[in-house]
């Protein structure tokens, strides 16, 4: 009565999508496996942003900061010869969450456009830090030669994450775990409260809800997942540069969430794939591909506010 249970058709569709993705390494050319890996990492990042934008109603324009912090944390640890998948992903999550504590505590005192500008400003400050703290980050050269971790079970099978297929499957697993966790969070009492705060903060306060704490928790959790995506990006690229924290990353993620459809988690995944493939397809033909992507974005906002997911829901 309170929750529409996920329909069997929806679950079947998700499983089919997961299986189709899992089969990619078996048939796709190497280049496309690489692109699909990038898309999955971007999808994890976009899903984490959707927790803020879609569920909590917080338009963060600085989410790339946490992606970048996660990437740098993972890179720094991996370069100090820490091996192991779990610690490297975890350090990305924890570092990003820690960075989100002061940023959230200050930004969340505002809402709407002010929140957007504050998150943007803080993210650009962190970007500046990545450029200028040369002893730690090597500035614009970035950290290079980041090794990928090993996994004991896989090593005995003679598979390493340096193989594109294996690394792709790793990203897929992390993406699925992210999807399921955030879906559970969205349907939990916590998620419902977040939804109430998004719809009417004044009423929630009048009902005795300390709204700031809920938003703050959501902000930190979203940052942690963004940090995991960043850690995967560092492993995937083998380097971490200040670009990862730049505001264009935040902007692209916002585009992915809106194009795919906020307030659903499959939306940002579709949006991430759409944006990445659009970028790839367009940039081979036109130099100013951003112009076309921007036009597409405006078209979506005007004519399809529910995003790609809204298109399916309507029919």
């Amino acid at each position, binding site marked *: 009565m*309170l929750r529409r249970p996920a329909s069997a058709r929806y679950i079947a569709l998700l499983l089919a999508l997961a299986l189709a993705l899992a089969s990619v390494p078996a048939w796709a050319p190497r280049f496309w496996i690489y692109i699909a890996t990038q898309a999955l990492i971007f999808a994890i990042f976009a899903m984490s942003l959707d927790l803020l934008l879609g569920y909590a109603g917080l338009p963060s324009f600085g989410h790339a900061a946490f992606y970048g912090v996660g990437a740098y944390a993972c890179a720094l640890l991996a370069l100090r010869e820490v091996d192991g998948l779990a610690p490297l992903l975890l350090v990305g999550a924890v570092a990003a969450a820690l960075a989100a504590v002061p940023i959230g505590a200050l930004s969340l005192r505002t809402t709407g456009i002010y929140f957007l500008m504050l998150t943007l400003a803080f993210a650009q400050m962190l970007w500046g830090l990545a450029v200028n703290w040369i002893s730690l980050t090597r500035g614009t050269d970035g950290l290079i030669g980041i090794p990928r971790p090993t996994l004991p079970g896989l090593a005995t099978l003679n598979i390493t994450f340096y193989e594109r297929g294996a690394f792709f499957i790793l990203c897929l697993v992390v993406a699925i775990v992210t999807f399921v966790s955030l879906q*559970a969070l969205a349907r939990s009492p916590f998620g419902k409260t977040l939804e109430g705060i998004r*719809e009417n903060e004044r009423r929630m306060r009048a009902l005795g*809800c300390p709204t700031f704490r809920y938003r703050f928790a959501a902000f930190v959790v979203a940052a942690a997942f963004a940090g995991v995506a960043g850690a995967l990006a560092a492993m995937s690229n083998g380097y971490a540069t200040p670009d990862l924290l730049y505001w264009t990353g935040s902007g692209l993620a916002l585009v992915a969430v809106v194009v795919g459809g906020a307030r659903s988690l499959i939306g940002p995944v579709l949006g991430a794939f759409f944006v990445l493939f659009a970028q790839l397809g367009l940039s081979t033909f036109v130099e100013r591909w951003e112009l076309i992507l921007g036009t597409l974005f405006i078209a979506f906002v005007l004519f399809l506010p529910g995003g790609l997911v809204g298109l399916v829901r309507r029919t």
Partner: protein
Amino acid sequence: MEVSVARLTVRFGALAALNRVDISVATGERRAVIGPNGAGKTTLLNVIAGELQPTEGTVHLGERDATSLPTWRRARLGLGRTFQRSTLFSRLTVVENLALAIRARRRDSWRFWPVGDRALNEEVKGRLEASGLAHLAGRTAARLGHGERRILEVELALAASPSALLLDEPMAGLSAGERQTTLGRLRSLPKDVTVVIVEHDLDAVFALAERVTVLDHGVKIADGPAAEVRADPRVQEVYLGPI
């Protein structure tokens, strides 16, 4: 819970929306606050609820000095309220609206995975039936009619099980039938619940409240049993009009 304000002053620039107002509402009392438009009635409720800081004066909830407490803390002390303009969760259904209010009262929302909640479902069902909104359970609040929105507005406040309740014109724009429903819901409140009601509908005021406070231009001009206030010539002049 006792609700009282002392020497309460709220200034917006040169205008004193409230000027040294003292009101004390005993536990379980049903108090109406009436007065012409701009008398400071809604301002008074906003100060008691904590949405507005007074320029001077204090607000007490029970024994506690609540003057500097945030809204949500006052709500947790047992203060509930409705708003003059319906303040609902527009894009959520009536059921989800009620569930949010009940969850807020139970303070058990720090759980991060979906949970089946039979007690919650039962309570929502009960409140739907008692308020006559059962046939609208699955409709979003944005798609309710005016009267239905007002009823849900009151129902959200009731779902918090307040020990003191501030009502800001709960009857405004209701049909005769809806008025009866709302009046019935308010009468069914436990006897120890304190009620402060701001209302233009004087029939409702006198049906519900035993004591009446009259505000005019931010000043309290009368305070006492309903019949006495009704007979007060000053009140008749400013509020009921010259006879």
